[in-house]
């Protein structure tokens, strides 16, 4: 062992470890759909019994993930929150939180599907049907779309008028049977049940009826505008509504 230069000789194990790691990575990509399904069901059941919440930090650990495109988002409450409805309507209006709470509420329990892959099953949302607010405002015949703006100052979304009038599109005030928390887009967010969750704009502050659809924040960055779960963004998830 001490003769000559023991270091220069020997077998090229390093190269094999490197190539083996690459091979495992490729194998992981191929086997991912199967592995992911197994892990999701395992971690999903483990998360139910996990008091620390650490499983929520694991990939596919279940639960929601916080995405915000703004640097910081102001907090709004019952006294400071306003929702304006304007654009191509006969009766523009500004709602306070209490106004929205006074309207008939609809509760829906559906899966939430994010375009990045995570899915949260059976999540209750509760709020006012968007169609009710649109009808109250009196949409003009020339209108074809609805644009949503948010008090984070950056995010925007849009739906065609037909999509916006669906019964499973809510201006949501409650989620998981609690008032919407700030992290989940409270006090008021959009909830578009049949579409990927980026359509469900958080911190909703403006509803503007327009002639045509204007691409929203992520849509200008490549996401599909008609974001039906399972039929857009190249994904084949189980539809949510």
């Amino acid at each position, binding site marked *: *062992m*001490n003769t000559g*230069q*023991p*270091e*220069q*000789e*020997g*077998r*090229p*194990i*390093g*190269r*094999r*470890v*490197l*190539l*083996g*790691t*690459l091979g*495992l*990575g*490729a194998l*992981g*990509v*191929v086997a*991912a*759909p199967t*592995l*992911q399904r197994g892990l999701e069901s395992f971690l999903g059941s483990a998360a139910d019994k996990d008091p620390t919440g650490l499983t929520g*930090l*694991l*990939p*596919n650990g279940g639960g929601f*993930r*916080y*995405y*915000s*495109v*703004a*640097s*910081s*988002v102001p907090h709004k409450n019952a006294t400071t929150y306003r929702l304006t409805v304007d654009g191509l309507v006969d009766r523009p209006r500004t709602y306070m939180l209490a106004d929205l709470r006074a309207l008939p509420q609809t509760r829906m329990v559906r899966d939430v599907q994010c375009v*990045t*892959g995570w899915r949260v099953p059976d999540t209750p949302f509760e709020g006012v049907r968007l169609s009710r607010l649109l009808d109250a405002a009196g949409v003009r015949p020339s209108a074809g779309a609805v644009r949503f703006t948010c008090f984070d100052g950056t995010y925007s979304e849009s739906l065609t008028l037909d999509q916006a009038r669906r019964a499973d599109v809510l201006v949501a005030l409650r989620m998981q049977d609690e008032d919407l928390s700030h*992290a989940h887009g409270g006090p008021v967010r959009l909830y578009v049940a049949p579409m990927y969750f980026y359509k469900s704009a958080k911190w909703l502050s403006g509803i503007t009826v327009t002639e045509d659809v204007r691409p929203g924040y992520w849509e200008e*960055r*490549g996401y599909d505008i008609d974001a039906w779960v399972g039929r857009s*963004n*190249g*994904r*084949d998830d189980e539809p949510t509504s």
Partner: protein
Amino acid sequence: MSLRADAPAAATTVRRFSRAERWVHRTTAALMGVCVLTAACLYIPELAELVGRRALVVTVHEWAGLALPVPVLAGLASRAFRGDLRLLNRFGPHDRVWLRAALRRDKRRAARPAGKFNAGQKIYAAWIAGATLVMLGTGLIMWFTHLTPLVWRTSATFVHDWLALTIGIVLAGHIGMALADPEARRGMRTGSVSGEWAEREHPLWRR
């Protein structure tokens, strides 16, 4: 009698890394650090909430990841760096002894024969290089979603997420071991280590 006892070994210094090698390490570490920090801001809810600016953080993460292999590729121009890569690649009989001892948690010096790099360092180097390339590949699939079949994106995300977690743990081990060994850190910082340290930690080096 013993030459070694007469010569004040601790006073001698030994060159361990060239300037080029240290810069390869420094820039790789900085880029890896950016990747890890931005990843944390995208992934850990509390940090995501604190930092926001998702589109910006994604862009920084993507470009740092793309640049991550560049220092190593540039380092190939250095003869010293190529020489060390050769040493990292080749495993001799003493490396098998070292790995066995590591598995038994045998910390005695005699049980851990090592050349310029011990077997653990060699495995780490090869694995982190492979893992970085897997992260790069899966990252590119997630970035340029229209270049590959779309089913691949979810699969790539799956591998990217879990491998990121693994790399995070292994990197923490790498940094923890460096923190525990000031002389090893001096070697990476200044390029030189004490002869006494070299003799103790890497007895087969310079034989």
